[in-house]
């Protein structure tokens, strides 16, 4: 599949068609001031974010092969959807998993095409959303604005839709950027908090009026908002964890955590209320289609609640973590603090500088901060030898593995498999007919002698305290139990209580149902 490489979508401002540059004419400025321009710039940026998606459909004609059947924009939006829903606190979405989940939709678009082609399309779309060909792995759009002094400035807007982030063990995960989430939700450039509240209020109203089709859309939007919101918070927590000095311990952090917890609690109450309402709606609705929609809604809101709970646990962990860091950093024996604060004196001032100036500082640090390298001295004689030596053939498979010498371990178990099977058979009692241990022992002796009786006695004693919880969890249908009713065991080989041994039936189906409900 041929790929045209990085795509630079170009968005130009309509303002560029202005008659005369304002500073050249004495007439009043024809362009609106920077304040009005800002809104325009924001909309232009929002527009730019959609460009890569349109671009996919425009560029599919350039691919080697017949790809016009595929709706690339649709696949792209579905991909962004999948990544957004799969990204969690710590990790993002797995590349291959996204491709796999995209396949059914692509296959539905062109069922007669081979599966390999479907996968190629999925990968092409995903790679183009990451924009693999460019060094930044992002997009750039140009637009124009008026500077405060009235001059017209052409600017570059850099953005990403799906970004690759490092996960545990060097794995690369995918995350959708805020820009992408905004494009997807359709509410461009809005405040996270207020949009979430708005979406939820809307949902509640819709559910009450029974307009479920709209409600589902709103619920999905609420979930995207929740994800976006968690992402914002995760970043803030990460930052505070890294550098205690960077945050105000006395007021700002505790306030922030308290506010965030309030917020989560608020959302939790709210979403639980919605959940109750929708559940009611789900049970009351007669129409099958609406019932299904309501059920889907319940799932979505449950997912929202799960994400909020996750957020809350993170918030609760933050306090102890801060205190530990505080102990480590602030209460240590005070050192004579002299010298350079690398972060405060160098990193912080350098970052806002224009590139031209910043590079002078980093160059100076690099030149003296990297240490020394002993220069390599090459002798012509060595070089000739080196160049003329034929490359060493590498053994493809490596050295031969020695055959492992296996020694059979002696079977030292006290009872044989047959004995166990016989004992089990003996103890396989009907649920309504428990038996005395003494009777069982006699039968065992008659069958296979003292050894079997010993095994039966052991199993019966073991059953005196049956692992009901484990059996319950594993979904067992019955359980052996033994009870002591005070009668003495009269037996030549064993002493103690003459236990009553029986089988208890467990309600496996009911337990399974309980488990799913609990989860």
């Amino acid at each position, binding site marked *: 599949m041929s790929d045209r490489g990085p795509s630079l979508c170009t968005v130009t401002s309509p303002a560029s068609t202005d008659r005369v540059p304002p500073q050249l004419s004495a007439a009043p400025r024809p362009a609106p001031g920077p304040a009005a321009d800002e809104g325009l710039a924001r909309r232009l940026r929002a527009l730019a974010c959609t460009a890569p998606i349109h671009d996919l459909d425009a560029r599919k004609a350039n691919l080697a092969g017949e790809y016009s059947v595929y709706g690339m924009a649709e696949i792209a939006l579905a991909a962004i959807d999948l990544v957004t829903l799969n990204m969690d606190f710590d990790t993002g979405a797995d590349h291959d998993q996204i491709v796999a989940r995209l396949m059914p939709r692509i296959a539905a678009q062109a069922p007669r095409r081979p599966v390999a082609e479907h996968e190629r399309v999925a990968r092409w779309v995903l790679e183009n959303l990451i924009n693999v060909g460019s060094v930044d792995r992002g997009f750039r759009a140009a637009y124009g604005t008026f500077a405060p002094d009235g001059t017209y400035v052409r600017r570059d807007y850099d953005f990403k839709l799906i970004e690759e982030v490092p996960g545990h063990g060097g794995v690369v995960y995918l995350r959708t950027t805020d820009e992408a989430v905004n494009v997807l939700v359709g509410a461009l450039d809005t405040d996270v908090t207020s949009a979430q509240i708005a979406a939820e209020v809307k949902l509640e109203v819709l559910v009450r009026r029974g307009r479920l089709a709209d409600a589902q859309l709103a619920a999905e939007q609420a979930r995207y908002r929740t994800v976006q919101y968690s992402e914002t918070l995760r*970043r803030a927590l990460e930052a505070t964890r890294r550098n205690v000095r960077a945050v105000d311990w006395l007021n700002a952090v505790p*306030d922030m955590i308290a506010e965030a917890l309030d917020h989560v609690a608020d959302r939790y109450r709210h979403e639980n209320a919605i959940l109750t309402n929708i559940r009611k709606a789900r049970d009351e609705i007669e129409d099958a289609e609406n019932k299904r929609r309501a059920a889907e809604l319940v799932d979505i809101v449950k997912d929202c609640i799960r994400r909020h709970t996750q957020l809350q646990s993170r918030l609760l962990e933050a306090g102890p973590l801060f205190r530990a860091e505080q102990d480590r950093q602030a209460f240590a024996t005070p050192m004579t603090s002299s010298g350079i604060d690398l972060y405060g004196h160098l*990193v912080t001032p350098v970052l806002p500088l224009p590139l031209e100036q910043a590079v002078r500082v980093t160059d100076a640090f690099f030149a003296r901060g990297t240490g020394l390298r002993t220069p390599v001295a090459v002798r012509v004689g060595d070089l000739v030898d080196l160049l003329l030596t034929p490359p060493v053939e590498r053994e493809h498979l490596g050295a031969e593995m020695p055959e492992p010498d296996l020694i059979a371990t002696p079977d030292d178990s006290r009872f044989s498999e047959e004995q166990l099977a016989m004992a089990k058979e003996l103890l396989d009692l009907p649920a309504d007919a428990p038996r005395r241990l003494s009777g069982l022992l006699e039968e065992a002796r008659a069958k296979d002698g003292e050894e079997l009786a010993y095994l039966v006695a052991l199993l019966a004693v073991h059953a005196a305290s049956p692992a009901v919880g484990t059996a319950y969890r594993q979904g067992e249908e019955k359980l052996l139990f033994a009870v002591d009713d005070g009668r003495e065991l009269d037996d030549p080989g064993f002493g103690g209580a003459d236990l009553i041994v029986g089988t208890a039936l467990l309600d496996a189906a009911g337990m399974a149902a309980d488990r799913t409900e609990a989860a």
Partner: protein
Amino acid sequence: MTEHVEWSDTEAPAPAVHAAVTPADAADAARLVSFGLLPKLQPARDQEYAELLRRYREDPAFARLADAVAAGLGLIVLEVSPRAGMAVTAAEDSVFAVRMGDYARRTSADGGDRFLHGLAHLSVAAMAFPRPEDLADDGYIGRVSVNGVDAFVRQACRRLEERAEEQGENTDPASDAPGLEAAWRIWARRSATGATKDARRLAGSTTGIVGKAVAFLTDSGFLQRTGDDGGGTYRTTARYQLQVRDMAGGAAMAELLELGVVPVTDGSPTLLPAEETDDLDLVADAGLPFHS
């Protein structure tokens, strides 16, 4: 430093035993300097090295001789001690100096890449010695991870982005003047990582750039690899602390002052613990989302 040697010969003939420098002494001094050129070699692991270090500390004439050898080779002696060994570093224009062009390709053509590599080194140091006390405390051992450094720079960039947004500033650079783009944007827009065909780190990504920096510093004997978490974790050596404290930090500060960026207060800016002011500065926009 060569002057010192002459002085010692003429003016200080007191220790009669060492008055005359024999070729064997010169060889020993040069040998000590050559040990210093092997930055990963630990004095505790090599008896001859330890012996020469002891001699340097106990025999002033020998010390001056070794200093002279180092100076003649274009080396600056940072410290000579059992913990750091013969800590020498390359003077500017020395054959031992590391040049950006040799360090990474594309850096001469692309100012952005050049900056990213430099900032990676600065950030590794800032992460390894987060407080001025850490840099001053000889016993301090810093710990860094590749992903940690990247995340920490990104956080700083994000803060600047938020501040710019608060002030309603448009930080998108003008298309015809890429050199005027704010430095933090270069890092922020470069992707943190990327999938490659052979499962190696994408060299052009920021974690790739930081990974290159820490690997290079490890070869310089400045870091020691301790694990694979977070893209690779490292701890600092005494040499790195010396290098950053005595060489790199000061040089970068001087450059910054020349740009007129740091206001010079009381004539001793580097000695001031600027923490308090920093704190206030950062708290105001520490990226906490729930204040509005």
